[in-house]
């Protein structure tokens, strides 16, 4: 180009020209480029224009969550392939977010506490999140019709455990329980979606539900449960979280439950706004009568407390509300919480907190603190009676000395149980333990709610001398005004809060009077520990049927094997030998024993638990030997239980402790079979009674192998398994000199 020459297209050296349909700049005659340069230049320009032309047009779409329209400042956009939702829409899923420094990604914390970093898209120059990425983490589905994107929650889990049916949805939904006829219950889950294949295969071990059907409705899903005679679903229990609803089974005679309501609606909606007044009115009217909606005594008691403190109705904060970058608590929650308080006012206080122990002296008067725990026996308004005053009190340091006995670190190194591996979650930093509250359900069930300022992964240990369950919370300061609580519960004599072993950690210790099964339910503000008497405890050995399952068998199913001095050692032979010893011990004690095989024959995987089910067995014990092949250092015994079944967990603990004690091998402890496989172990998954699979050692480890091949060792292991079984049924605690066990649950 020649300097100083003007052009008409605004770029130096170029003038406007027209080639075909596209206007391009062409060199003026004085600054011609060669043809070879012009072609690629034109190609680039055309490609860019083509891309521009072919870009999808952005169209605004209405966003509905669980059937309710979400009011948003910025509309969601659809580009023909992807729906983009504004960041503020995360509150509809009870999720919060924090932007990174460059503001090109959002760290999203979902209702269950899980985190995910999602890249921010900017369609229409507005920061938004691709819906497909949210759904990837949220277990949700959307449908796009007529300019409306309706997002529905999948049922994340549907499980029977103990006396409870627990349903967890991808994000909070109100689950309504209807009882059209006595033996048939319908659960309405508006805003839910899914085929329910896992739901329909859910097994009710106690056979309280004999039929489950699922139907899609315009609003969501309806699950119909056929109940066995004499059973009913009682209501949601205190362990409910905002995503998880727990329904308790009750046998005959059917009790009357008086519950108040703390329902969390899925989103701020115009519809909900208009209905809020009606909701409030309805909540008041239903107080004192049966109410199946979203009962959550934890929230209810919290509301009562705040009400008592301030004299006014304090809003129940939405989960995650107030966090960095999080949307503010929603007005609908506040309204419903208000409605709840209104409802609670008309219910007698003892009904509202039936069975719950007081929380702390600062928050409850002394008489309440000394109250004897009441069991929920079906009466609408149980009467609290005075009990013994708490004897333990003092500083945290005193508690640490007096309460905490031998710890994991003090146990024999060979018996140290390693931590279970769990998906990494963000640790609680600078958290505070603010409350510990016991709720006694009945003589067989209790719940301990540990309230913390931030969600945290907790470590659970079973300690001995005396037997206690210790819950460790890392990076957490104890700020409860009371440190010790007494209880007259049959299996729980007291509980204490204090500093943990590690500096800056907190520990809650539960004094156990007998063996319990436990399950941890993470909550937004801490953790709930469900304690229960394992199934079958208290029964006489002579009345029991125990199925003993020697692993593998036959010429093909040899199990793991190795060659020692030219001879092949097969797992199937070791397991059969131990099983025979165990059968003898059990039969000598009067137990009815069924063996899945008594010789070297092949038995199908489903036939093994099938034998137990067909004979209404009380317990299933499978015996195996583990193997890593390439790794020769792994050593020790493990007892697996299925999923998070409390009874099977207690059985596995009982056996694992005793096997480790006699084997002299490392104690790998009791572990969920979901740590191994997504589907768990086949024989445990199909078992309907307390069941465990004991890996007695590693064939790939020379020390383990030498022991496993020794008949004396096999007898010892059989004796230890027998002792574990007997202790389970007798509800006996582990011996004092047993090593501590440890398990991490997040």
């Amino acid at each position, binding site marked *: 180009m020649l300097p100083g020459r003007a052009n008409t297209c605004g770029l130096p050296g170029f003038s406007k020209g027209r080639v*075909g349909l596209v206007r391009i700049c062409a060199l003026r005659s004085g600054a011609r480029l060669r043809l070879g340069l012009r072609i690629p230049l034109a190609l680039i320009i055309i490609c860019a224009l083509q891309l521009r*032309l072919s870009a999808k047009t952005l169209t605004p779409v209405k966003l509905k969550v669980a059937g309710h329209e979400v009011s948003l400042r910025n509309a969601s956009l659809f580009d023909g392939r992807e729906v983009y939702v504004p960041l503020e829409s995360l509150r509809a899923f009870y999720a919060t977010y924090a932007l990174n420094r460059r503001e090109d990604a959002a760290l999203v914390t979902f209702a269950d506490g899980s985190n995910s970093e999602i890249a921010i898209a900017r369609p229409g120059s507005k920061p938004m999140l691709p819906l497909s990425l949210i759904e990837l983490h949220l*277990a949700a589905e959307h449908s796009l019709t007529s300019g409306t994107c309706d997002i529905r929650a999948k049922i994340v*889990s549907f499980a029977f455990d103990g006396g409870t049916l627990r349903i967890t949805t991808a994000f909070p939904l109100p689950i309504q329980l209807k009882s059209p006829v006595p033996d048939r219950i319908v659960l309405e889950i508006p805003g839910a979606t899914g085929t329910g294949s896992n739901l329909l295969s859910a097994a009710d071990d106690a056979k309280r539900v004999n039929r489950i059907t699922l139907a899609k409705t315009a609003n969501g899903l309806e699950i119909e449960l056929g109940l066995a005679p004499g059973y009913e679903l009682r209501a949601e229990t205190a362990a409910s979280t905002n995503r998880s609803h727990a329904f308790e089974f009750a046998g005959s005679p059917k009790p009357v439950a008086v519950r108040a309501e703390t329902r969390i609606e899925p989103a701020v909606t115009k519809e909900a706004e208009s209905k809020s007044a009606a909701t409030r009115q309805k909540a008041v009217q239903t107080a004192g009568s049966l109410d199946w909606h979203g009962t959550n005594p934890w929230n209810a008691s919290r509301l009562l407390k705040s009400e008592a403190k301030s004299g006014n109705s304090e809003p129940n904060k939405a989960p995650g509300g107030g966090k960095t970058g999080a949307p503010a608590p929603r007005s609908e929650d506040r309204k419903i919480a208000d409605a709840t308080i209104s409802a609670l006012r008309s219910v007698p206080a003892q009904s509202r907190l039936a069975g719950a122990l007081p929380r702390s002296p600062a928050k409850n008067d002394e008489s309440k603190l000394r109250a004897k725990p009441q069991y929920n026996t079906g009466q609408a308004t149980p009467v609290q009676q005075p009990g013994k005053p708490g004897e333990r009190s003092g500083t945290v340091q005193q508690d640490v000395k007096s309460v905490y006995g031998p710890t994991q670190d003090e146990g024999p190194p060979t018996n140290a149980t390693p931590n279970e591996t769990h998906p990494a979650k963000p640790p609680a930093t600078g958290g505070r333990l603010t409350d510990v509250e016991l709720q006694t359900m009945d003589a067989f069930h209790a719940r301990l709610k540990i309230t913390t300022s931030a969600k945290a992964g907790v470590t659970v240990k079973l300690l001995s001398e005396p037997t206690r369950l210790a819950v460790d919370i890392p990076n957490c300061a104890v700020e409860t005004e009371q440190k010790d609580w007494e209880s007259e519960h049959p299996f729980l004599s007291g509980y204490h809060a204090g500093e943990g072993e590690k500096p800056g950690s907190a520990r809650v210790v539960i004094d156990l009077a007998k063996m319990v099964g436990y399950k941890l339910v993470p909550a937004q503000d801490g953790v709930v520990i469900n304690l229960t008497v394992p199934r079958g405890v208290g029964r006489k050995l002579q009345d029991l049927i125990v199925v003993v399952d020697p692993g593998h068998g036959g010429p093909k*199913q040899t199990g793991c094997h190795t060659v020692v001095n030219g001879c092949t050692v097969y797992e199937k032979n070791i397991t059969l030998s131990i099983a025979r010893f165990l059968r003898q011990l059990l039969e000598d004690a009067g137990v009815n024993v069924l063996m899945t095989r008594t010789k070297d024959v092949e038995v199908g995987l489903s036939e093994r638990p099938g034998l137990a089910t067909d004979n209404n067995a009380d317990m299933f014990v499978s015996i195996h*030997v583990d193997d890593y092949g390439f790794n020769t250092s792994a050593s020790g015994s493990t007892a697996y239980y299925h999923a998070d079944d409390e009874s099977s967990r207690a059985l596995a603990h009982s056996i694992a402790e005793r096997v480790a004690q006699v084997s002299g091998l490392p104690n790998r402890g009791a572990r969920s079979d979901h740590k*191994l496989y997504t589907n768990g172990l086949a024989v445990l998954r199909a078992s309907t009674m307390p069941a465990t699979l004991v890996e007695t050692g*590693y064939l790939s480890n020379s020390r383990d192998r030498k022991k496993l091949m020794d008949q004396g060792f096999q007898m010892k292991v059989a004796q230890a398994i027998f002792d574990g079984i007997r202790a389970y049924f007798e509800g006996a605690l582990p011996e004092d000199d047993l090593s501590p066990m440890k398990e991490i649950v997040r």
Partner: protein
Amino acid sequence: MRRFSIALLVIVVGCIAGYLVSSGGCGKPDDQAGPTGGRVKVSRPVTQGNEVVLKEENVEAPKDKDPVSAALAALFQTADDKSRPSAIPAGTKLLKVSVDGGIATVDVSEEFNALKNSGDSAESLAQNALRKALAQFSHVKKMLLKVNGKTFESEHTDWSEPIPVRDDDAVANGAP
């Protein structure tokens, strides 16, 4: 006239190139997002105290395969590397991979059957290594493993149904 022909040719070529780029015909579709740059993650067992855990490492993926096949091929290559332990039984070959409706069907050679007569720990490592390899691809939700076209008959767990490749999905499937 000559100039006009050249310009017309340029426009036609440009349009075709533009269409291919914008429609994804030249590249990977958006809904099959996964590792880029020819590198994938494979999991290898490593010993930590008395435990064996899977540790992910980045390796170069075979470039003549689609991304999912390349990631699995890289994993199965570890089975032939005798210098370090692999979660996949030695000699196992990847025969075929197809992804349909979010389910990756992985067909492998019969050497995989060696896991039948191994311990739970070893079989667990193999399953989780496969899951981790497939979890790199957002469009893969579950995996179904076949050995020479047949269901893998484990003596420990059920492989007959598609298995979620991510823990979140596993939870949705009923796991705690």
